């Protein structure tokens, strides 16, 4: 059944997550929906799944207006969403998962024979004959779990099926099986919306490409007419030239990573970081960005490789040892790994440098206060009272506290994991300014991010992490978001060979 969107809009306060999205998706086709982070994709998916309702605008299914007040409404109308994170119950069998909440019964009891017959028939119909309906889901590979998830979705006889990054965790062979399954559903006349970051796989499966940019419709093309250039053009529009202050080249080598291997993310990663340099590392979801920083910081064991600081091998050092040598790590996950949310701003600003501040292990508020206040002033953290809990601050100011905590420890290398996540544009700029100011004082930074425009804006040099390796390097004039995007998302040979002048 055709899916029509009429002026679909969702505002969060003053923020327009999605604005006036009008488009039609024809049935019996696979439609790619793409857009960079913050383009409004996730909001759109949530609306289609009934998890959030539009501020204004309408959804029509085959000409009939529909309203999704809850996920049940969406399912009742035949709109099924398969999320990136699997929603299967690991301990239950494949059959139980497929029919969860609607298990066939005989009287009061579950009719196991019928359940397994039904599930088996469904799996066979979808060409997944090698999956036993009695098998527990946790014994399956992630790829097969994904297949079960889609078989489950198809058993709800969907009219519209949304797949949110279905291939992000799959190996090549599993992707092929998934595509076969999608083609079967397509042949049944299901309208399929395929959300993906992997541009390279689109020609193999989709019929049209529709793009969102900054919460608005940015164009739609038949796949046959959409080359990488056209797609990137729709996604990024005409970019304003960057106004980054000119950086002096660092010169002096500070940190070196040699042949780092962390299974299953990183195979062989080597790079060098100079004094005062801001190095970006770009990579898509699951490329091992966070793992790379954790490996350098000593926060997780590595399988092979060496980390050298000042030419000295610090691979054998644990996290506290590397911290003492001047490494610092600001986590992407402020809530769970960066801050103690209900502790005071003060306490969160002096956690890392505590042992340095303390005299013979003794410390008190007055002794710590200058350190906390120095960061509040230096980072322009907007705060009325340092003793308020840190969760009373906005995301941007919380991020500054995470960074300030580490600046207090007097680091030489600052590892920043997604410093711009969940932070407004203004605060983001301020955080980059902080990174540059620190760079001018000789502090080196490694910034890891999925937000490629930010990397291009903030960094002196950007490495692209793909398939467990450094696949490309950009610096100077060659450093531009479109080129970065192409290098991050494409897996075709010509792009991986592409290396701009260092």
């Amino acid at each position, binding site marked *: 059944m055709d899916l029509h969107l009429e002026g679909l809009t969702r505002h*969060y*306060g003053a*923020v327009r*997550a*999605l604005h006036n999205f009008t488009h039609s998706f024809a049935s019996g086709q696979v439609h790619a929906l793409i857009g960079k*982070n*913050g*383009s*409004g*994709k*996730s*909001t759109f998916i949530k609306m289609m799944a009934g998890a959030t309702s539009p501020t204004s605008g309408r959804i029509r299914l085959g000409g009939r207006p529909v309203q999704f007040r809850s996920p049940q409404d969406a399912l009742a109308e035949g709109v099924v969403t398969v999320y*990136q994170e699997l929603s299967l119950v690991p301990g239950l069998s494949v059959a139980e998962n497929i029919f969860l909440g609607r298990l066939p019964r005989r009287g009061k009891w579950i009719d196991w024979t019928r359940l397994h017959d039904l599930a088996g028939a469904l799996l066979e119909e979808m060409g997944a004959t090698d999956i036993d309906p009695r098998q527990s889901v946790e014994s399956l590979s992630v790829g097969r779990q994904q297949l079960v998830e889609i078989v489950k979705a198809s058993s709800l006889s969907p009219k519209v099926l949304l797949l949110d*990054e279905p291939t992000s965790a799959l190996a090549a062979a599993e992707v092929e099986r998934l595509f076969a399954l999608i083609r079967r559903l397509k042949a049944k006349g299901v309208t399929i919306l395929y959300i993906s970051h992997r541009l390279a796989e689109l020609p193999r499966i989709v019929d049209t490409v529709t793009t969102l940019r900054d*919460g608005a419709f940015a164009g739609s093309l038949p796949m046959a007419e959409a080359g990488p250039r056209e797609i990137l053009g729709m996604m990024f529009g005409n970019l304003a030239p960057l106004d980054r202050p000119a950086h002096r080249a660092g010169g002096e080598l500070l940190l070196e990573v040699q042949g780092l291997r962390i299974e299953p993310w990183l195979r062989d990663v080597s790079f060098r970081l100079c004094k005062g340099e801001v190095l970006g590392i770009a990579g898509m*979801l699951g490329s091992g960005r966070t793992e790379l920083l954790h490996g350098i*910081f000593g*926060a997780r064991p590595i399988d092979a490789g060496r980390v050298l600081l000042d030419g000295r091998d610090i691979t054998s050092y644990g*996290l*506290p040892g590397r*911290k*003492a040598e001047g490494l610092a*790590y600001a*986590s992407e996950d402020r809530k*769970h*790994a*960066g*801050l*103690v*949310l*209900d*502790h*005071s701003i003060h*306490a969160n600003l*002096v*956690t*890392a440098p*505590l*042992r340095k*501040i*303390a005299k013979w*292990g*003794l*410390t*008190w508020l007055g002794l710590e206060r200058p350190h906390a206040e120095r960061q509040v002033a230096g980072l322009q953290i907007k705060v009325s009272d340092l*003793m*308020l*809990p840190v*969760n*009373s*601050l*906005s*995301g941007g100011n*919380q991020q500054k506290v995470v960074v300030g*905590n580490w600046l207090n*420890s007097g680091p030489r290398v600052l590892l920043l994991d997604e410093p711009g996540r*969940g932070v*407004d544009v203004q605060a983001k700029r301020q955080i980059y300014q902080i990174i540059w100011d620190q760079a001018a004082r000789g502090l080196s930074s490694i910034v890891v991010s999925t937000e490629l425009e930010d990397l291009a804006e903030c960094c002196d040099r950007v490495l692209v992490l793909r398939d467990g390796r450094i696949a490309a390097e950009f610096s100077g004039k060659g450093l531009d978001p479109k080129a970065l995007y192409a290098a991050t998302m494409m897996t075709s040979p010509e792009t991986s060979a592409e290396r701009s002048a260092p």
Partner: protein
Amino acid sequence: MTAIPHAPVVQGPRRLSGLLRRQSMLLILIAFYILVALTGRGFLTPDNQLNILRTVAVPGMIAFGMTLVVIVGEIDLSVGSMVAVSACITAWMVQLLSRGAMEPSVLAVLGAMLISLGFAALVGFFNGLMRQKIGVPTFISSLAMMATLAGVANLITGGSPIESFPSWYYIIGSGRFLHIPVPVFLLAAAFAFTFILTNYTALGREIYAVGGNIEAARLSGINVWRTKTICLVITSVFAAIGGIVYSSLINSGNSTIARGLELEVISACIIGGVSLFGGKGSIWGAFIGVLFLGVLLNAMTLWGFNPYAQQVVKGALILGAVFVNFAIDGRSPR
């Protein structure tokens, strides 16, 4: 992937509520104290006041240690058994070291105490190690330790108390200095030690950080397992000191003492506003909790409550305190 810049959740004046919570517990204590003073015959006599302090000395001391353990995000259910086993070890060791002499030497007693404290430290260290290496929640491992230690105590005594102490040994539990019972000095020392630890040392701040968010603490370069282990060791050693005090009070090593003491200790912490989720609480709060429990028990005796009814009241009080504890933390009790 999130396209929604979520608005920061302003949690309101949390600090104010925290302050009010501490103050309110103190206010309730004062109000209750006045009530008992008006109704309980002989409550206000200096002797009775000191008696209250003496009865809470051992559970109070252990509660200060337990406060550290709970703040760091763990629990130790084995403190009651530790009290019993340490009393038995001390008595047994005095017997062994003095070769059964009628009046064992001071050195033999000190040696026995050291062995007892050393054993407790080892048990605390072992609890920490189990937590780190195997990942067993301390709720489970200390439950197992509770049963084990109780068994060890019975094995040592063989069912009948060991009476091996010298004649002056009563001083530790029942002696007085400047009219104040000796255990009260121990309580004061434990208070001072843990108060300074939590408020004026880097380790204390780290205890709060680890309990508040273990991953953030780890990524801040704090040795989280060492921090947890130190707290477990301190509590275990405090329990062993309590065991020595009790052995002095009854002048023997008896394996049946301090049954269920862990309940009293933990409820004092909860009444004192120490969050069961870790990261929050204070020694001062625990002290108020301890006093409240002491005054309540004393009052019920003065009022002539049936001992079984006293148990019911104690249990109900803990339930109420847990409820308040969960309500203040704003988390559903699941």
